[in-house]
């Protein structure tokens, strides 16, 4: 990475400002679809470039927060506008900007026909929310961004969604809102307990600077509130029913972003706020979360095997993958943590791509039920190639990116000597998840791709250049992250170690 | 001697007030209750004088008897008040109302009677100066707010009651030569 003087000084704030600046011309051209598309593409591309520059100037190997910008926002309440990135969030930010750019590029390729201007505005707003969530260091700012993410998503699903969109979007919002309100209560509680009247603060670096400021039983409940909010967002098993509906009804771009980034907000929140701030809470709730994650892995895979709708199948598969993330986070060791963060990145790329391809297929055939599909391999070789690779990455084929994350998580789980039963039980159970993944994904792949040629789809064209342009970066990333994961690991590991150390994990020093 | 006289006058006033008050509530003709209300206000002014607050008594008469009663009489005249038309003039919930009022009244009156530490004789001198100073110095701002409130009430009442003037002017009066339209 390029060290020395930062090329772009206020890059993080710039990341938040660009989409907002992009919205202005959009409002002017709201009626003219073509102009709206161009503005949106340019804005999201600029956002992507800035995020890459930020990544370039990120000093690898440092655990602390970098490029921190801190300005007093509501001084009376001790709330500061504080943004910064560390090993975990820098990659997630780049993932966000990349997926948003791809979604906008794809939507402008004809997927969204009516009210394009409003769609783009919603998307840019969504991007602000998403980037904000990952770079916010002040709990209040984090909460604001967490909510800001919700509204555009609600609109995107609600307006441009499928037939049962209203039910789906309402369910999505109510679920997430219930969770986030809990979190708000917890944030206020944190604020009040964060010190004597004078030195109260919500900024994360200060909170984790000194010895833990919170009493043990407070930590237990605060952790529960935070974890619940993120569990709903992440969909852990009992709270996951909103995800399939939201995905089935969301437009393609919405699905990509929903699966690619919104789910990560939950995972990110866990490792950023829940674990480090409330170590004792983490210890107390650890067994339940681990059991739930393993259940999520198996349950998600089992349910998605019998799905009839393609998008629902992939939605449930992301429930299973996110089960790996929570498992990795909560086994509290380096391998697990790094594996979880990697899994988040991989899942973002791979599931984002899968939804992109389901979207492409839906735009052409207007059918999503697996029974109606079949025999695409005969007349869509390029599509089959791309889709095949992403399916394989999703089921964790070594050499592609899925495997690295999952293997590290499994390694971490085996190492976990926790209360209920040591990792030696949870590890193999979770590994079974990998088998089930192969089953439902390949069975879907076989029913959709193979089989005799169907007259209805014979004449449909293969991937258009714009679709290839959208898919290519994801494909390259999938292969690169599988074959050369070390650069990413080098970025992620120090920060994960720091967070997990805070959460009371024993970090094994690298033995050379 | 004077306080005996005062006692008598107070007794008269009390009987008048309570009697007229009950009259207002129980009278079956609205106009009677309006008048009885005016009478209660007058007696109340008397009470104020007994307490030595002449200004308040004067205001009481000026505002309540002079303006509010007339307003209510206007209201009474514009609305139908043929008691016989709709039988029972009590509400459906009369029993509950009465019971509730009685229940509430009991503890308050008991408590009221327990006040026994105040002075029995009204302090000398009218209350005009003290009142004027209080209203225009320490309570100046509330006074302004009260004026704004009155303005708002006036405008509100007018707007509520004002009928839209019909688009077309009222039809010209019939001339004798024209047949009835």
């Amino acid at each position, binding site marked *: 990475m390029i060290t020395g003087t930062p090329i772009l000084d206020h890059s993080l704030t710039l990341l938040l400002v660009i989409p907002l600046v992009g919205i202005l011309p959009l409002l002017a051209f709201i009626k003219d679809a073509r102009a709206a598309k161009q503005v949106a593409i340019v804005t999201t591309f600029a956002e992507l470039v800035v995020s890459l520059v930020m990544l370039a100037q990120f000093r690898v190997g440092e655990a602390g927060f970098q490029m921190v910008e801190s300005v007093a926002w509501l001084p009376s309440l001790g709330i500061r506008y504080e943004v910064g990135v560390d090993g975990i969030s820098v990659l997630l930010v780049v993932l966000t900007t990349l997926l948003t750019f791809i979604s906008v590029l794809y939507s402008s390729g004809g997927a969204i026909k009516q009210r394009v201007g409003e769609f783009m505005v919603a998307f840019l707003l969504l991007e602000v929310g998403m980037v904000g969530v990952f770079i916010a260091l002040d709990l209040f700012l984090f909460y604001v961004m967490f909510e800001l993410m919700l509204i555009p998503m609600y609109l995107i699903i609600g307006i441009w969604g499928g037939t049962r969109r209203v039910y789906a979007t309402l369910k999505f919002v109510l679920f997430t809102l219930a969770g986030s309100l809990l979190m708000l209560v917890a944030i206020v509680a944190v604020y009040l307990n964060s010190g004597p009247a004078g030195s109260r603060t919500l900024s994360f670096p200060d909170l984790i600077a000194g010895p833990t400021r919170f009493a043990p039983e407070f930590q237990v409940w605060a952790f529960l509130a935070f974890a619940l909010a993120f569990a709903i967002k992440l969909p852990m098993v009992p709270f996951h029913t909103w995800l399939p509906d939201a995905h089935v009804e969301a437009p393609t771009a919405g699905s990509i972003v929903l699966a690619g980034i919104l789910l990560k907000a939950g995972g990110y929140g866990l490792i950023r706020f829940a674990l480090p701030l409330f170590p004792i809470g983490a210890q107390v709730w650890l067994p339940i979360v681990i059991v739930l994650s393993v259940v999520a892995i198996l349950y998600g895979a089992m349910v998605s095997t019998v799905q009839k709708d393609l998008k629902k199948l992939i939605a449930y598969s992301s429930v299973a993958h996110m089960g790996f993330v929570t498992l990795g986070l909560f086994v509290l060791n380096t391998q697990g943590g790094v594996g979880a963060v990697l899994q988040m990145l991989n899942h973002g790329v791979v599931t984002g791509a899968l939804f992109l391809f389901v979207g492409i297929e839906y735009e052409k055939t207007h059918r999503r039920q697996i029974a109606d599909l079949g025999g695409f391999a005969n007349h869509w070789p390029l599509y089959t190639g791309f889709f095949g690779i992403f399916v394989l990455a999703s089921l964790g084929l070594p050499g592609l990116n899925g495997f690295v994350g999952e293997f590290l998580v499994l390694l971490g789980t085996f190492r976990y000597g926790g209360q209920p039963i040591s990792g030696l039980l949870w590890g193999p159970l979770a590994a079974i998840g990998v088998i089930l993944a192969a089953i439902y994904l390949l069975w879907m792949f076989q029913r959709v791709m193979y089989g005799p040629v169907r007259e209805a789809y014979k004449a449909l064209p293969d991937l258009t250049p714009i679709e290839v342009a959208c898919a290519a970066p994801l494909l390259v990333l999938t292969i690169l992250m599988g074959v050369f994961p070390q650069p990413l690991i080098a970025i992620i590991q120090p920060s994960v170690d720091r967070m997990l150390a805070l959460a009371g994990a024993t970090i094994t020093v690298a033995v050379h | *001697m*004077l306080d005996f006289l005062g006692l008598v006058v107070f007794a008269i006033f009390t009987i008048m007030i309570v009697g007229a008050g009950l009259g207002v509530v129980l009278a079956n003709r609205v*106009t*009677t209750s309006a*008048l009885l209300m*005016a009478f209660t206000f007058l007696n109340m002014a008397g009470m104020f004088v007994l307490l030595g607050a*002449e*200004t308040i008594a*004067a*205001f009481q*008469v*000026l505002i309540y*008897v*002079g*303006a509010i*009663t*007339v307003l209510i*009489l*206007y209201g009474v*005249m514009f609305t139908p008040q043929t008691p016989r038309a709709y039988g029972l003039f009590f509400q459906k919930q009369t029993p509950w109302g009465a019971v509730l009022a009685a229940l509430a009244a009991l503890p308050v009156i008991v408590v009221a009677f327990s006040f026994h530490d105040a002075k029995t004789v009204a302090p000398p001198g*009218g209350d*005009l100066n003290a009142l004027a100073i209080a209203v225009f110095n320490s309570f100046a701002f509330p006074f302004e707010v009260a004026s704004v409130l009155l303005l708002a009430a006036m405008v509100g009442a007018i707007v509520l009651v004002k009928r839209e003037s019909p688009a*077309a*002017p009222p039809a010209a009066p019939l001339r004798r030569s024209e047949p009835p339209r």
Partner: protein
Amino acid sequence: MPVGPFGLDPLLWAIVRLLIAVVLVVALILNSSLLLIYLERKIQAVMQDRIGPYHTGPFGLLQTFADALKLIAKEDVRAGHTDVAFFIAAPALVFTPMLASYVVLPFAPPLVGADLNIGLLYLATLGSMGVLGIVIAGWASNNKYALVGGLRSAGQLISYEVPGILSLVTAVLVVGSLSMVKITETQTGPLVNLFVLPLAFATYLVSSLAETNRTPFDLPEAESELVAGYLTEYSGMRWGTMLALTEYGNVVVVCSIMTTLWLGGWNGPGVAALPILGVVWFTLKVYALILVFMWVRATLPRLRIDQLMSFCWKILIPTTLLNLAVTAVLLIAFPSTLVPVAIANWILLVAFIVLLPVVQQRRLRQLRKTLRARTAAAGVAS
């Protein structure tokens, strides 16, 4: 407790005082009203170049007594379906406030009923109680004309109460106290308030004309379409008290307020030496003002109800408010002297007199234009 004169028992003395008061009221106040009626008819006649009553008694003096006797002797007629209780109560409600205001009037230094330190406010309050009687009279007589007449005159009385009280307030600002006795004492010299607050005097004069239902505003009695307003159903002594006694009683009260405030009350040469002389000066000033009332009655035509109301709300009240504001500002600006206040008041008076017709003209033109536009539009539409 004050002991009665000649060692009488206080209780007994209280009753005796009550009797004396009743005698005084019947004798003086009622008779003065009769006298005034006679005076009114005489002056009216003289102004209209005729003689007026002269048969009954020397120079017709007993004419009004004769009328009074006739009214008392008249049969007590009451229309059917009238609200009996209210029909009877109404005249009392109108008469008693007039009667009660005499207690405060300062005839002479020793001759004052009760020197209330809120005397003027007391008078204003009683003035506003009369309205109630009128409304009830209108309502009780179960007659459409009576009802509408009653509501209209109530509206008029309440409307004109506002400028009246405002002008009183202006005067009080200068004088500084509400007690009638103190007011008169502050105007010992020849410089009476009339020269300090002429505009206030003028506005109070106009509003008191309306307050007592006098000529330009005597809408209820002779309204062509309202027959006799709230008095239609009344006859006999009820009518007498309602109209004659109350009206003229009020005229006396209003004039005495004006004399106390603007003309210096009982002050005149020689009062310092012999206080009782004040009564003479006081009555002279009051009767001067009453002559002005009668003069106005003889000359000015009657106003329509909407002209009357718009004059009050659109012209009189703004002027009195302006006057009050100007006086208050100047009093604070120059606390010691009254000269600037006087100058300002005179200027305002002149402006008021000059501008009044101009403003009315423009309003009329405006009104006609809108009416013509609307009829034209209606013409096009129909």
